[in-house]
């Protein structure tokens, strides 16, 4: 198309930097990181909750028959803590980010530029995803020090589980945002997935302690494979088939969420 440029314009824009998907997402993520730091409510929820809630799990754990399920307090608390981090710092926080940016018409403005849709969502999600990642690493270190948690026996499973969890929670947040109209309702709409995950994905108690039929339903919940993989990463007692099944479940949820986002995500407020 340069043939259509006037000489003056060609001169003006010659040699200037062209953006790449990575540079655009970095610029957006940097701004979003600044905003994250300025939102006291989000900072509190995403930092305080994952570091405090696990202790309530620990209190309950001491009354459970953990040895029978092949677990220790550490291998119960750490996956739960990572689960809380994913739910609060990533999922719930991002529902708010997506909805508020849409209501402020920020998403609409971003779409007038060179950013592709996936870059807009990805760049906006990056700071929350990174905070979820950093929290999970800190929690792992904390559990090792405070709860005598030994080194993971199958670290690759824990890494895969965590990464899948981060991507899945960001995608689920975009789905939830599709069905959330205002910033206020974004305080409420994440609750169903959060409650279901806390109760059914092994955050407060391992699924092994549930009746078989209920447990097999709970295995299909979005966050269950993530918790299973992280816990299996530490205990090392996950068979290859079980690990693959968990990965497949998490990938299936992610694909489903991406499909839902493409189908239903709203870039502008309703008129």
């Amino acid at each position, binding site marked *: 198309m340069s*043939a259509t440029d006037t000489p003056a314009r060609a001169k003006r824009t010659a040699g200037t930097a062209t953006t790449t998907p990575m540079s655009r997402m970095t610029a957006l993520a940097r701004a979003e990181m*600044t905003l994250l730091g300025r939102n006291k409510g989000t900072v509190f929820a995403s930092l305080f909750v994952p570091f405090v809630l696990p202790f309530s799990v620990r209190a309950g754990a001491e009354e459970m028959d953990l040895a029978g399920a092949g677990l220790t307090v550490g291998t119960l608390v750490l996956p739960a803590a990572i689960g809380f981090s994913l739910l609060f710092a990533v999922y719930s926080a991002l529902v708010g980010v997506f909805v508020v940016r849409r209501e402020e018409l920020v998403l609409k403005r971003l779409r007038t530029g060179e950013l592709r849709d996936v870059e807009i969502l990805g760049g906006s999600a990056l700071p929350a995803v990174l905070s979820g990642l950093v929290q999970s690493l800190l929690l792992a270190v904390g559990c090792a020090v405070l709860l005598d948690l030994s080194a993971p026996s199958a670290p690759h499973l824990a890494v895969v589980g965590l990464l899948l969890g981060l991507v899945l929670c960001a995608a689920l947040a975009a789905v939830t945002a599709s069905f959330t109209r205002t910033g206020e309702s974004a305080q409420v709409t994440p609750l169903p997935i959060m409650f279901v995950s806390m109760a059914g994905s092994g955050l407060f108690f391992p699924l092994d302690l549930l009746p078989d039929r209920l447990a097999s339903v709970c295995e299909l919940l979005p966050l269950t494979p993530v918790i299973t993989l992280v816990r299996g990463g530490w205990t090392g007692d996950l068979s290859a088939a079980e690990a693959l099944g968990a990965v497949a479940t998490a990938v299936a949820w992610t694909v489903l969420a991406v499909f839902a986002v493409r189908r239903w995500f709203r870039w502008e407020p309703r008129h």
Partner: protein
Amino acid sequence: MQTNGHEHVIEVTGLRRVYGGGFEAVRGIDFSVRRGEVFALLGTNGAGKTSTVELLEGLAAPAGGRVRVLGHDPYTERAAVRPRTGVMLQEGGFPSELTVAETARMWAGCVSGARPPAEVLALVGLGAKTGTRVKQLSGGQRRRLDLALALLGDPEVLFLDEPSTGLDAEGRRDTWELVGALRDQGTTVLLTTHYLEEAEHLADRLAIMHEGRIAATGTPAEVTAAQPSRISFELPDGYFVGDLPPLAGLGVDDHETDGRIVKLRTRELQRAATGLLVWAGQAGVELRRLDVRSASLEEAFLSIAKEVSAQAAGTTTEKEYAA
């Protein structure tokens, strides 16, 4: 596309836009904008201007018809078009907790060939506001920030949706000067406005939109020329309209009276005015409140709105008769 300076940078044919609820906001419009031209979409609120511009910006797919910007479909070929266009939306779209400088820096990171943000902020008069949070800016300052972001990438084609709404007189003049300077540099500008003065001042060509259609299009002079000129005056005491010289003979198309005030419409202003004044001179009467005015864009605009509301009134009457 040609390089002889007459290429069409924006081409719109049979364009339609229908919203989810079935409302047809744009009902089949055609126009084109040449490189380096300033083109204005003029219309009242709800005429379909913003709905049209959003299709040109590639924010939505049309329900029918075709849009080409720089030879590409702005919706399906985003990557080819976006690095060469700048967009100023009708309403902000900035995170309220970021400062002006942070907002500009973020946008600069998303724009190919971005100019230094500080330079562009100074250009729109926000140089002293860089550390201010967006939420603390006035409406006019936000419009300027929006304009700055639209200019960051030094775009070939600039879309400005109501660029001066919310600005005070001085801010409006600044924006006009800026748009004029951009045109001089060869930037193609498509703007929407409901200020007639703005369209008259800035636009090389314009289209008046009404209820999703283009009611008139051309240069401001062409659109104006299609409208009749007007003469109005107060009938001298003791005179009646019938005492005037035969109006058709003076080139008057039609007339109406409002109490003692007579209003004439003509496409031959000089002939009609001369005939009237010669008659008054010979009769020795004074035409008080005499007002002779050639057609203006405002006239064109109002008559288009009037025609349509007259049609609407007609429909209502019919309904009343039917009931």
